[in-house]
Every structure is written in structure tokens, then in C-alpha cells.
């Protein structure tokens, strides 16, 4: 495996408050990495920097051989996709949400592909017409995840996406993630505090007080 992303001495500070200290990290293409650490340790900040949602204060971030600054942020985010904890769904129906990735790319909706994606997370085509207010927490999270992968990104960043889900929903998401990683070669980085997910992690990094350590 080769390095898809390399972070060198990445720092992030707000005023005089240092949130991340000299992060050095090499992310291999096709890796499935679990990230953990105490609340407020800087995990989400690090992942948001990787997702180009915020900019590092100093250091270097190389993606696919080029510094992050050389990419148009919009095009970059289509390759390095970030899924939020407790996502907001748009519009009125599930279909509105799954049409969004096509709309922003000025492409017609590929209905067959959308249906396949729904089935992969245990939902059916009938879900498309459901109003977002009628969805359960697990269904909302799964719809949000599909939005991120209808156009496959190279890296998928998941910020505690299974927090608050029941075991059945967690299992669906885990299996789907494995499928994304193994069959579609999507590099995944998942932030979690979940004991089961931490126990099952093959590769793990821990962020503590703004410093990153590869722990497994």
C-alpha cells in the first residue's frame, strides 16, 4: 500500500489555544482506520482539517501527491468526503437528499445506482418517497451515509456516525463500511468511542491532548 495522504507537523490553533500539535501521519490507500481519544482531544478538528472544512494553522498535508492548497476545495471534498455525527437531512424527502450529490455535479439522478445504495444499507426503494421527519435515527444516519458515497470518494471520514444507533443499525453500518473498504477500495477513517468498534479495530490511532499516536 502507498500513502494516499501524508500529514507532516500539522498544527491547529485558535488564538493562543493549541488544539493540534505537530501531527505526523501517513494514511495508506485502502486502509480502514479507527480513531479514538478523549472528548475535546482534537479528533474532530483533525478530521475536519483532512476534509478541508477548516484549514490547518501550519504544517503540510499532501493528498494524492499534491499539497491540499493546490486543490480546489470543492473538488477536493468530492474525493475526501466527511460524514457528520447527527447529520442534517435536506429538503422534504429521502429522494431530495439522494438527488443532491447529482444536482451539485449537474448530472441526472441514476435511479438504479441510488436503489442499489439504499439496499446496501438495508433500506428499500420505497424509502425514497418517505418524508425525512418520519425516519428513525438509524435510517437518517444511513441516508446521510449514502449521500457521501453515491459518487465514490477516495477517503471517507466518519465522525462518530454510529453514536446513538442501536446494535442492529450499527451492524448494518459496519457491514456497509467493510463493503465500501473491501470492494470499492474506499479508505475509511472512523472516529468512535464505541467499545465494540474499538475492540474490532484492526488499525487504530489515538488522539490525546492534540497529539496523534498509532496505537494498533
Amino acid at each position, binding site marked *: 500500500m502507498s500513502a494516499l495522504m501524508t500529514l507532516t507537523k500539522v498544527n491547529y490553533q485558535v488564538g493562543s489555544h493549541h488544539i493540534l500539535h505537530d501531527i505526523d501521519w501517513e494514511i495508506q490507500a485502502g486502509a480502514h482506520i479507527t480513531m479514538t481519544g478523549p472528548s475535546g482531544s482534537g479528533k474532530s478538528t483533525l478530521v475536519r482539517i483532512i*476534509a*478541508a*472544512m*477548516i*484549514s490547518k494553522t501550519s504544517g503540510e498535508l499532501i493528498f494524492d501527491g499534491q499539497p491540499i492548497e493546490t486543490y*480546489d*476545495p*470543492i*473538488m477536493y*471534498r*468530492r474525493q475526501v*468526503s*466527511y*460524514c*457528520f455525527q447527527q*447529520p*442534517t437531512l*435536506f429538503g422534504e424527502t429521502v429522494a431530495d437528499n439522494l438527488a*443532491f*450529490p447529482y*444536482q*451539485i*455535479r449537474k448530472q441526472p439522478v441514476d435511479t438504479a445506482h441510488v436503489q442499489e445504495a439504499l439496499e446496501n444499507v438495508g433500506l428499500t426503494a420505497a424509502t425514497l418517497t418517505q418524508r425525512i421527519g418520519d425516519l428513525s435515527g438509524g435510517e437518517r444516519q444511513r441516508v*446521510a451515509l449514502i*449521500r*457521501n458515497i453515491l*459518487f465514490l470518494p477516495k477517503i471517507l471520514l466518519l465522525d462518530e456516525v454510529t453514536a446513538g444507533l442501536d446494535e442492529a443499525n450499527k451492524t448494518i453500518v459496519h457491514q456497509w463500511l467493510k463493503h465500501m473498504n473491501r470492494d470499492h477500495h474506499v479508505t475509511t477513517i472512523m472516529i468512535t468511542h464505541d467499545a465494540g468498534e474499538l475492540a474490532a479495530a484492526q488499525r487504530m490511532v489515538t488522539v490525546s491532548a492534540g497529539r496523534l499516536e498509532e496505537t494498533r
Partner: protein
Amino acid sequence: MNLAVNNTSLFLAAMLVLVALGISLWQKLGLDKDIVVGVLRAIVQLVIVGYVLKYIFRIDNVWLTLAMIGFIIFNAAWNAKKRGAGIPHALPISLLAILISTGVTLGVLILAGAIKLIPSQVIPISGMIASNSMVAIGLAYRSLNTQFRDQRQAVLERLALGANLLDASITIVREAIRTGMAPTIDSAKTVGLVSLPGMMSGLIFAGVDPVRAIKYQIMVTFMLLSATSLGAIIACYLAYRNFYNERKQLK
């Protein structure tokens, strides 16, 4: 014409200010100072503008007329900017939006022969157009500020999915334009039923046949719709980008 507000009647009418002042003091609204300042400013500004307009109408010079219109537009932009607190470049954006909305609307009215290119017609009409555009832009700015704060998470998620800035903001921009135009549309619906608006009232006061006066009011309704929609759309489309930084991140 039977227009007879003499100085004595005006002085007696000033008693009405005491009503507002009394309510403010009685209900401890803390508005007494604002009321006094507001009234004094209104008197001073109107007296000055009265003499300035008298002079401009008498001279009838195109450059002087344009300068007066420019002055109106600048003041309108300055006031609209105040509603856009926190939006960078709000003054030049407001200036451009009010300049274009006033210019286009005024141009159409002149070309259509609805008004003549003489100071006594062009200046009051410009004032009406610019002030309505100013209110629409001010409301649109406030709506942008509120929505970008309240819908921050949704905007972040659209960005994270790879949306460009317009796609990430379009629902907010549309709502802000709608908010800016709403008072004009509402007043268009109720005109004549709830209020006899300024233009029409003024003409009727001056002794013009009400049927002729309504033609002017219909024209005013058309021009205000044009002015507020142009002003709001230009201001919103220029302002929304300022909620993002150069790396296309939400500030």
C-alpha cells in the same frame, strides 16, 4: 388646491409627538431620547431638503439632478449597510444593488413616458425607488445573517458533500430574496384596501382627480416590485460569498 398647513397648525400638530413621548415615559420604554432626536432630525432634514429641492427644481440642471439622485442612492446604501452588520463589503454591495435597481426602474419609467426627465418628477420617484430598495436589501441582509447562523450545520454538510458555494447557500439566498420582497408584495396586495399610499394621497391632496391619481399609484406598485426584486437579488447574490473564506470554508 387647498393645501394649508400653516406654521401654527404644524406647531399644534407637534402635540402629537407628546403622545408618543408620554407613552414612552409612562411605560418606561426608554425611547424618549430617540423620539426627541428623531423628531428634531426629521424637522431639520426636511427643512433643508425642502429648500434644496426648491433650488434644484428652479435651476433645472441635469447634472445637479443626477447629483441629488446620487446623494439619495448613497444614503440609501449607507442605511442598508447598517442592517448587514458583519457582512464584509456591505456598503459597495448595497451601493451597486441600489444604483442598478434605481437606474433600471427609473430608466424604464422614463423610456415608457410614465414620467418626464425633469427634476420635480425624477427626484421624488428616485427617492421612492431607492428607499424601497434599501428596505428590501436591509431585510435580505438580516435574513442572510440569521439563516447562515441558524442553518450553519446544513451549510457545512452541503460543503462536505462537495457542493459549490452557491449550491451550499441557495436555499438561504432564495429565502433572503423572498424576505426582502415580501413587504412590497404584501402592500401590493392590500393597496387601496388598507392604505391609500403616499403618491396617490399626495395627488388627491393636491386636488388631482382620484381616477388619475390611481394611475400613478399603479405605476408606483410596478416600479417598487421591480426595484425591490432587483435590489434584493443583486445584494443577496453578491453578499452570500462573504460568508465563506478564500478556501471556500464557512467563516
